């Protein structure tokens, strides 16, 4: 593909590489782009990626594994779009995604990305685990199959398969049961929502998945969806409507907030914990939901909520978006964003690092272990904290 054929060929040169995109709102740290934080080379900054993409399309540089690594290390956390002072900001991630798409179409993507996509195609999940195992979590938790209840509870691949995330998925299910919410889940019939596939530039596969998913949900009569993962929430809320999928979608923290307001959820167990909350990118920057998770935490007795210095739209991504949760292109260093992030959490004096995303849960918990902070900081999903405060252990 030439620059002229690139969808964003008329604007990609507009990045000055001024570097605002590296910062949080308050400028406290130049490391708010997770890939730049990890590698600290200009090539891994947002501007570096745009300039390299343009150079590649203009044949000034050749495709290499390293170029693909640079592009795919972008977690689509949206920090760059929030901070870029230029009018092109709204298309920065579209440009990165279009560059990945071109790599996909040329069959030149990182091995880890290829493995991810292959597993999605083969098994409907990135774990290479058979679809038949996808419903194990709900059987363990006693969650009903979806049969026209008010809400479909979509847990997503990580919530369904990862041992640790399944605990959060189950706790949320039990909590919703306790509140009398009418809901069911699809178990082994639940499809991958495709958010990561989309951000990895596999447009064809994404479209196929979305169309199949919409068809499935429509055939089941689904009107309202609750998600465990902000990634699922983002895809269903922002991408599915383009393909005709119109569902009332809630991230579970939004539903919990409503249940608390309606007096249907009454956390009573005094928790006596100091909590700091990590904003997931696909709930925060992508969908501007910063308050519901905090509101839920504040309603739990004995929770003292303290903020990390980088919070809300300045939050530092854990490094798991854009398929990086599975590809792990940002791991393996003290500079990995998750390992930086847990130290920020610790600096608040909190003993609980609360999350509202199964990917964040696992990445940050791993980071706590690697950094040897197990005795100082525990990572928990808000669903788990809320459930425990309702006596669900």
């Amino acid at each position, binding site marked *: 593909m030439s620059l002229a054929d690139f969808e964003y060929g008329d604007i990609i040169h507009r990045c*000055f590489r001024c570097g605002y995109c590296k*910062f949080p709102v*308050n400028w*406290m740290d130049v490391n708010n782009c997770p890939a730049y934080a990890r590698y600290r*080379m200009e090539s891994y900054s947002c501007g570096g990626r745009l*300039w*390299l993409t343009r150079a590649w399309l203009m044949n000034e540089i050749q495709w290499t594994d390293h170029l693909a690594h640079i592009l795919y290390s972008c977690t689509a956390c949206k920090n760059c779009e929030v901070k870029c002072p*230029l009018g092109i900001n709204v298309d920065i991630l579209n440009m990165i995604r279009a560059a990945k798409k071109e790599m996909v179409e040329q069959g030149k993507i990182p091995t880890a990305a290829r493995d991810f996509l292959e597993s999605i195609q083969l098994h409907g999940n990135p774990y290479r685990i058979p679809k038949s195992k996808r419903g194990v979590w709900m059987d363990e938790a006693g969650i009903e199959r979806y049969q026209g209840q008010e809400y479909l509870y979509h847990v997503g691949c990580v919530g369904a398969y990862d041992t640790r995330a399944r605990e959060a998925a189950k706790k949320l299910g039990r909590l919703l049961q306790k509140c009398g919410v009418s809901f069911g889940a699809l178990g082994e019939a639940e499809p991958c929502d495709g958010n990561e596939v989309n951000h990895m530039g596999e447009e064809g596969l994404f479209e196929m998945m979305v169309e199949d998913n919409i068809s499935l949900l429509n055939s089941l009569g689904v009107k309202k969806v609750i998600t465990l993962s902000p990634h699922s929430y983002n895809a269903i809320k922002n991408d599915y409507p383009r393909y005709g999928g119109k569902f009332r979608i809630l991230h579970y923290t939004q539903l919990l907030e409503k249940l608390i307001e309606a007096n249907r959820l009454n956390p009573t167990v005094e928790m006596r914990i100091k909590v700091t909350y990590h904003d997931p990118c696909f709930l925060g920057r992508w969908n501007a939901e910063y308050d519901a998770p905090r509101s839920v935490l504040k309603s739990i007795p004995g929770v003292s909520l303290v903020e990390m210095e980088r919070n809300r739209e300045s939050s530092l991504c854990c490094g798991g978006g854009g398929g990086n949760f599975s590809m792990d292109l940002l791991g393996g260093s003290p500079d990995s964003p998750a390992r930086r992030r847990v130290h920020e959490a610790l600096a608040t004096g909190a003993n609980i690092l609360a999350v509202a995303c199964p990917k964040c849960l696992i990445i940050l918990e791993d980071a706590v272990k690697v950094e040897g902070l197990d005795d100082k900081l525990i990572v928990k999903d808000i669903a788990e904290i809320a459930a425990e405060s309702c006596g669900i252990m």
Partner: protein
Amino acid sequence: MNNLFQALMDIVGEDHISNRQEELFIYSWDLGTTEPHKPDFVVSPRTTKEIQKIMELANREKIPVVPLGGGLSLAGLAVPFKGGILVDLKRMDTIIEVNEQARYALLECGVSQGQLTSYLERNHPHLTHSEPGAPPTATIAGNAAIHGQGDLSQPYGFNSDMINGLEIVLPTGEVCCFGSCSIGAGWFTQHPLPDVGLFLGWTGTTGIITKISLRLFPCKKIRGTALFVVDDEDQVPEIYYKITHTQMCEDIVAFSQTIPPYAGGLHHFTVNLAADSEKELELKQEIIFDDALGKIIQQGYGGYLGFTPGLQHPQISKTSDWRKGGGFEYVGGIMPVSQYPECYRRGKEISERHNIPYTVLGRCIGAAHAMMFSWTYAFNRSDPETIHHAREAMRETDELALELGGTIWKPGIYGQKLVMDRMDPNTLELMKKIKQLLDPNGIMNPGNWEVKS
């Protein structure tokens, strides 16, 4: 080269060295109109010790070393014209100390302007530093090394006048300290010890700054910007003199630009005021706008447009992005304030000749001892014709700055040659001797400030 790569990797670690095409490409480019030149290696050290080892290796192997801070000079000052090792210093970003009593900050060389601004706002809100009109990624040390200015330059001078001390790694690998730190007395003063001037304004050709002690200043509770406008450029110098005489403000900038259309031909002043109370603020406004400038306002030559609380952090201006092409560059002349009218008129002519909307700005330095006058030229990175025009406009402006009796701030190679062509021969000879003494193998940022035999 393989041996060199291995040796450098042994120093900085495998994550912080590259000779791959992607890094060589990115670091070959400046953000302005300078043609790219690739380094052979890019390294990103974390400590002074690592830099010391890099310098020892480079000096032994006689391979060029190009230090890079924020990379925002726009003048090609960190383009590796002769290849070699590009040293990206931004990982050295620790704020080591803020001394409240002696009002200074001790910083590693990669600390950015944004990082220090934010750190002071959060931890020492009654202290501030002179923030340049650059994006927050600009580094403190890089800005001081090129004699930058900032929003406290009116009362306190160039940002390089605010240095208490430096730690330097010499081209031959020795680590030297300058200022009171050199005798173990802390980092609170530069004087009266041997000078740091050997390393400022030399564009990294005499060594790498690894630590800097920067003076901080009182930050009053209320800070904001008053706006004043005149329509006659000939009045601007007098207004600079009148305002500076009051000694009431922190920053004075006069600017004129084609965009937005209503601003064309007018000369706006932003006058930054600071006060600890409304009473103090009112008094300062009265002294400046009623007493000093009242007559101009009454006669209808100028107008006071009000005071806006809160200082704006630097942003990419609309005129810089006028081409919508991801590129602009400017000549910053250090000029006599009296030359504002000619700087404006002649700069406007250059802009018109190259079909670029004019944008000029004069920031007062000291008590109107000088001004940094900038002529900005936007270009479109995807349109070679506009790059050519911007480059030509820059060269014409370099010559203009000298013709009007000024000098060029952070000149690129072209401007450096113009300056050296006019320089006193004995001074040139001294520069050459100093350079030979400090950098006997000529490895530091070659191409810059090269005195011909």
